[in-house]
């Protein structure tokens, strides 16, 4: 995966646990360099060994960690040089989600080595949003869930998110709490 993911993982560990734990994570994951270039593609095994080392050292289950990481992701992207991309994706939750797919597809033209996910907005009525997530990778639904939670917060909503797997995809049902639904 592209280096920005590794950068975010490093920042999360540094922010939550400090330099010492980060050095331990590097040791545990067997990585020799802690310098990542955001727009460079790294082998997925690097990303996953990094995440699993963080899980081990923070004593978190992998899904739990991915969800936490998803929550951190938006915070990180907003402070990164990519914040303009986030801003252009939309000023409200529904517009933002409807642009996710276009955003990733467009980024793919710049970073052809990446395997970007696809997002399809099925419907968005009466505070009920359905988003279909498809990926070549396995097991990242908790990450998406974390990001969606962070997005609800970013756009001033509260709500419940549930998932159900369908054919080769995961459907996210987002039900906004009534107060904001209108």
């Amino acid at each position, binding site marked *: 995966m592209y280096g920005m993911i590794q950068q975010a993982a490093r920042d999360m560990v540094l922010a939550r646990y400090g330099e010492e734990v980060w050095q331990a994570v590097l040791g545990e994951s067997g990585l020799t360099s802690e310098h990542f270039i955001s727009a460079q593609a790294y082998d997925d095994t690097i990303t996953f060994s990094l995440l699993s080392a963080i899980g081990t050292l923070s004593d978190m289950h992998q899904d739990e960690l991915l969800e936490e990481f998803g929550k951190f992701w938006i915070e990180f992207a907003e402070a990164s040089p990519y914040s303009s991309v986030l801003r252009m994706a939309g000023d409200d939750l529904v517009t933002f989600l409807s642009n996710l797919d276009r955003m990733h597809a467009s980024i793919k033209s*710049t970073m052809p080595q990446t395997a970007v996910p696809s997002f399809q907005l099925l419907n968005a009525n009466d505070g009920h949003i359905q988003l279909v997530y498809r990926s070549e990778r396995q097991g990242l639904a908790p990450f998406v869930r974390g990001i969606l939670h962070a997005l609800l917060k970013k756009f001033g909503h509260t709500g419940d998110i549930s998932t159900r797997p369908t054919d080769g995809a995961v459907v996210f049902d987002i039900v906004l709490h009534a107060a904001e639904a209108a």
Partner: protein
Amino acid sequence: MTLTLDETELDRLFPAYLCLDLHGTIASAGPSLQKLNDGDFVGRDFFDVLQLERPNDVTDIEALRRTQAPLILQACGNGTLRLRGIVVEKPDCLYLLLGHIPEVDPTLQKTPLSFSDFSPTDGSLDILLAAEVRKALLDDAHALAVELREEKRAAEAANVAKSSFLAAMSHEIRTPMNGVLGMASVLSQTGLEASQRDMLDIITQSGQSLLTILNDILDLSKIESGKLEIERTSFCLDEIVRSCEALFGMKAEEKGLAFDIQVREGAHGTYHGDPTRIRQILNNLVSNAIKFTDKGGVDIRVRRTDTREPGVVRLEFEVEDTGIGMHSETTERLFSPFTQADSSTNRQFGGTGLGLAISKRLCRLMDGWIQATSEFGTGSMFSFFVQVAVNDEASLPKPEATPFNHQSTEPVSRGLRILAAEDNKTNRILLRAFLEPLDADLTMVKNGREAVDAWRIRDFDIALMDIQMPVMDGIAAVKEIRGCESRERLVRIPIIAVSANAMTHQVCEYLEAGMDAHIAKPIDQAELLQLIGLMTQSPPGHTEAGVGNARAW
């Protein structure tokens, strides 16, 4: 076939379209433009709000209607908004089907465009994101460079710290080593059996080579931590050459080697630079040449060439031998520290292998260079140059007034009252042993304070003053003594500074503080006795110019 688009389709395909009536008034605009200027495009004259970049000869609605060329528009007053498209003519209006031209410049950050402002039919959004990604890449590269620079700085600082540590360590080891050698020297003057003398010789030789190694390490670490200073003093090139001949001529002869030194016409004479360091490099090369040559000989050539800078010349030295030579890979590694030609060389010939690394750094410090060419089995040639200033004859120092005669250790005066301040116990014992032949009345103190106190209550003929001491250092003590002497009109006591720091500027500092002479550690017994003899013979007031200067240089 006719394709008809409804308004929603038009909005999606050309989010920045414009519809003009036949007078050139904007009748409607796409969602992206409406959002941009709060829709105030509508109802205004096209040429008032937009400027045509291409084609640039179109100035009225008629010409616009007829144009077939692609359009490039700029919104007036908003330099960053540019649009591209074509004109489609309808019976009662003109459609300008337009899309945004993404600005690949970071100023775009400021324009409030979002994804929906870009038509899904073209690649403009991709270009825009590509620009953003590229910008992020540059930011990353910049941050990385900063981080790496910081890491490099830290690594260099650690290296300097290591060198300083090494220097301190070597210095610490040198003091007791000097104790060992000094005692061995004192012991050698006592009645010894032949077998005991052989053992003592081994102690002395081993100690001497250990000291050489320590001095090499000390030199190298001083250079690496930037603490080695190059002196600027007058020197005579022929003097350096002569001492080289004196030092190595015999050795070469013992090995049956020819030994020849040639100084080219024009190179003779005096210069301004660091003779000690030049001698160190030359001696290192010559000593290696003799070490690695069994047949033939060693040739040394010296010449002088001009530089572009007036008053500055190059002194070039060549040391050529007919020795074992080296392979080219070896020649390349020669000047790096801690690599000897190969480890067997070390075992066979000894040495730290630091000599050439030190020589190279010394050359650099003197704006010079060193290099080697060699052929395995045939011989090697080392050459180096340093830059020195030409001396104008008038400013030459007087030739060394009082060369020390090392043969005569016979003390000039006996029964002297000597005050010696030295904090190190070994050095005190050594000093006492060295002064033994004088049969002196010796008062030993441990720091400057005690020295001043002792001087106040007793009369002394001479004082030996260590520089670095706890409580009060040698310089402060001398200043206090000199102050008292002049206030109370007392007889001036000759004081000799004893220190390991013998750089010119340090020696000057000692003399300025009121010392009369300087002797460097490790102390040479003969030199010490000679100096004491000289200082106690002549009136102390005169020693300042005579002996003091002689010893300082």
